[in-house]
């Protein structure tokens, strides 16, 4: 084995959550009353296209969560030495972009550095000029003349490859489908082209083609150029932006591990038992809600910093420390954001409690615990799902703001907030260094936009009545 697998805590939680999601899909598929709203989501073009893009991001985060220590040298025949650095599967896929460090800033797709330097020219004199980059466009002899043609040819070849992969995958799926349905392939083609299918296959095919094209072209161009330029220390900005996907997704997803148990348990208990328990739970969430969230997070993260500076020896590596800080951030974001859902669930349990079927269950002598588990909770799950999907985009945005105030993820961790924070200082330069900001903007905007669109579709499908006036 050429590597030693290692699991960060967030990796394990993320994988666990993914397994949970997959089993949820299987549970829903078997039950018609649960799967009906979801098939409505998939039947809407916006719903299925945004779901595809979200899944694409999610897949990047998954690939980036398979961590290992790469092997550095072979000490003896049977013993290997492993680096203390932690790499992920994504790092392996993006090796050229990760390892090719330039000296400092360079513009997107540039072959020359952004800043002038003293250099020796051919006749041996010193002069100030833009030096060639170490890696980007290094295969060209006359970059000024050849660059555009080279980029176009790389892109064209990559597009051809991408489209042929895409066509192959779709043809095989459709062929299998036509065999199973016993319908001719041309008929199915016609239906897809005219958008007459039950699910918006034309839009799905189009989106998958686009994603495939973007992936292959950016990977191919990344072998020879810096697609989004390089930052101050010469690191590839595209690589940073892709690495930040994991941070964004994790913040949005892991936080639910805290919010859901708290909100569901306390909301159901408060609404079901009322009395002093209700008063107590209401008191807890009103108090927590009264503290401005940013300040509570700031206070908690400051205290974490105090703890970490006092216990610097407890952490094996920087990665592990950054990972723990990410987890802590999810925890504190969870603690500040369960209150809204809890209030909704309490009110819903209040309503459900008065339903006749619950009174019937009580009359039959079903235990309170069982009524809660079997009759109350399944009936407010749609609120939980809607709230989780609605909150996701807000959490991704919150990460950027918090990292900007230095109370977000660890500064050594790749995240869009950290990218913006570092790039902001360069806005004063002339000409402006705009690419770090643009890369972070494009990646973050795409994720949040489609998460928002998806959330709207899910809300309309699962329950159009509730959460209306809620912000």
């Amino acid at each position, binding site marked *: 084995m050429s590597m030693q697998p290692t699991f960060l805590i967030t990796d394990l939680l993320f994988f666990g959550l993914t397994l949970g999601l997959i089993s949820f899909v299987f549970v829903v598929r078997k039950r018609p009353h649960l799967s009906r709203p979801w098939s409505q989501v998939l039947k809407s073009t916006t719903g299925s296209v945004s779901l595809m893009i979200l899944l694409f991001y999610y897949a990047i985060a998954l690939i980036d969560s398979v961590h290992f220590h790469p092997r550095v040298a072979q000490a003896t025949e049977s013993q290997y030495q492993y680096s203390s650095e932690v790499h992920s599967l994504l790092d392996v896929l993006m090796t050229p972009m990760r390892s090719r460090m330039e000296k400092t800033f360079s513009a997107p797709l540039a072959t020359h550095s952004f800043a002038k330097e003293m250099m020796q020219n051919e006749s041996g004199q010193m002069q100030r000029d833009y030096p060639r980059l170490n890696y980007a466009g290094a295969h060209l002899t006359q970059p000024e003349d050849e660059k555009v043609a080279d980029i176009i040819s790389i892109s064209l070849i990559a597009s051809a490859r991408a489209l042929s992969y895409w066509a192959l995958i779709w043809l095989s799926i459709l062929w299998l489908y036509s065999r199973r349905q016993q319908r001719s392939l041309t008929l199915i083609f016609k239906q897809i082209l005219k958008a007459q299918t039950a699910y918006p296959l034309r839009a799905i095919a189009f989106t998958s083609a686009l994603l495939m094209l973007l992936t292959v072209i950016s990977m191919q161009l990344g072998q020879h150029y810096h697609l989004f330029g390089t930052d101050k220390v010469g690191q590839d900005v595209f690589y940073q932006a892709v690495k930040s996907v994991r941070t964004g997704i994790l913040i949005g997803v892991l936080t639910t591990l805290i919010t859901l148990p708290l909100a569901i348990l306390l909301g159901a208990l408060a609404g079901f038992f009322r009395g002093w328990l209700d008063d107590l739970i209401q008191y807890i969430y009103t108090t927590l809600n009264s503290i401005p969230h940013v*300040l509570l997070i700031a206070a908690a993260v400051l205290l974490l910093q105090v703890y970490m500076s*006092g216990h610097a020896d407890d952490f094996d590596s920087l990665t592990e420390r950054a990972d723990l800080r990410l987890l802590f951030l999810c925890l504190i974001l969870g603690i500040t954001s369960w209150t809204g859902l809890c209030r909704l669930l309490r009110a819903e349990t209040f309503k459900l409690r008065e339903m006749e079927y619950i009174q019937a269950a009580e009359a039959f002598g079903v235990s309170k615990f069982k009524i809660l588990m079997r009759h109350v909770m399944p009936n407010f799950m749609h609120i939980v799902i809607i709230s989780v999907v609605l909150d996701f985009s807000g959490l991704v945005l919150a990460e950027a703001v918090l990292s900007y*105030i230095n109370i977000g993820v660890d500064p050594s961790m790749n995240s869009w907030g950290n990218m913006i924070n570092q790039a902001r200082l360069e806005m004063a330069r002339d000409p402006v260094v705009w690419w770090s900001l643009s890369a972070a903007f494009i990646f973050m905007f795409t994720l949040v936009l489609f998460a928002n669109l998806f959330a709207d579709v899910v809300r309309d499908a699962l329950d159009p009545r509730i959460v209306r006036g809620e912000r």
Partner: protein
Amino acid sequence: MSAYIIRRMLYAIPILIGINLITFILFFVVNSPDDMALMQLGSKHTTELQIEDWKRERGYHLPLLYNTEQSGLGAVTETIFYQKSAKLFVFDFGSSDSGRDIGYDISQRMWPSLALAIPTLLVGLLVTITLALTIAFFRGTYIDYWAVIICVALISISSLFYIIGGQFLIGKLLKIVPISGFDTGLHALKFMILPVLIGIVGGIGSNTRWYRTIFLEEINKDYVRTARSKGLSEQVVLFKHVLRNALIPILTGVVVVLPLLFMGSLLTENFFGIPGLGSYTIDAINRQDFAIVRAMVFLGSVLYIIGLVLTDISYTLVDPRIRLS
């Protein structure tokens, strides 16, 4: 009415006590003052004596809850809890870790925050309500459909980008107003335009969409149908009936944020160098000045609770159907 308000205020007291306890536990129990001193002084080459001095200067040398060295009342008052946490109730914030009087700083920095927040809120309300009403007028058409999509797109942009983009476009490219800074009196005007504008644009997406749903909910009610069946024109229906009734949820929604306007906006003030309470807080976070953060947490919570009470009162004022119970 006054009995209701008093009862509502009494209800806020246990919440304030809870907040006070949370901040006390967060700042003094989870982390001891020793940790804070180490953090401020640096963990290397720091002697016990230096830590002791640091704590004594700031009054952190006292015991947490009960002082055994003092007798009588002093056993309770000569403690960190009494000196640092209980005094927050009378808005005695003490001095910051760097020695400045927090109460004085807050009273000075409140005004720039308000000067920024109030125009942003008022003009923003005017703009978003107008937009939302226009969209509601075109409901069900392509204009409505695309307006909602644009709103979702606007919501999806991080507030950081609004600020950076606005500074870049208007301050740097067009050079209409200075990028950042602040001045006293009327001279502050030219520094305020850009942050106010950005604050308004940043809020357009979410507020317009929210107000649109409120308008649409109102439009589908029976009284609107009655008004139409009387033969009233669409303009009269929208302005005289829908707008007036929809303003109730909109304005009561605004009331809850009114007190919080004092706190200012963290990001905008920081980016534009406006000496308000928002940048005060951010600076405190960056300098790890725990005393200021603690004071701001408490102040923010108090203002939020005041907002809640005001909301309840305003509901009863605008809607006579809600009884005071």
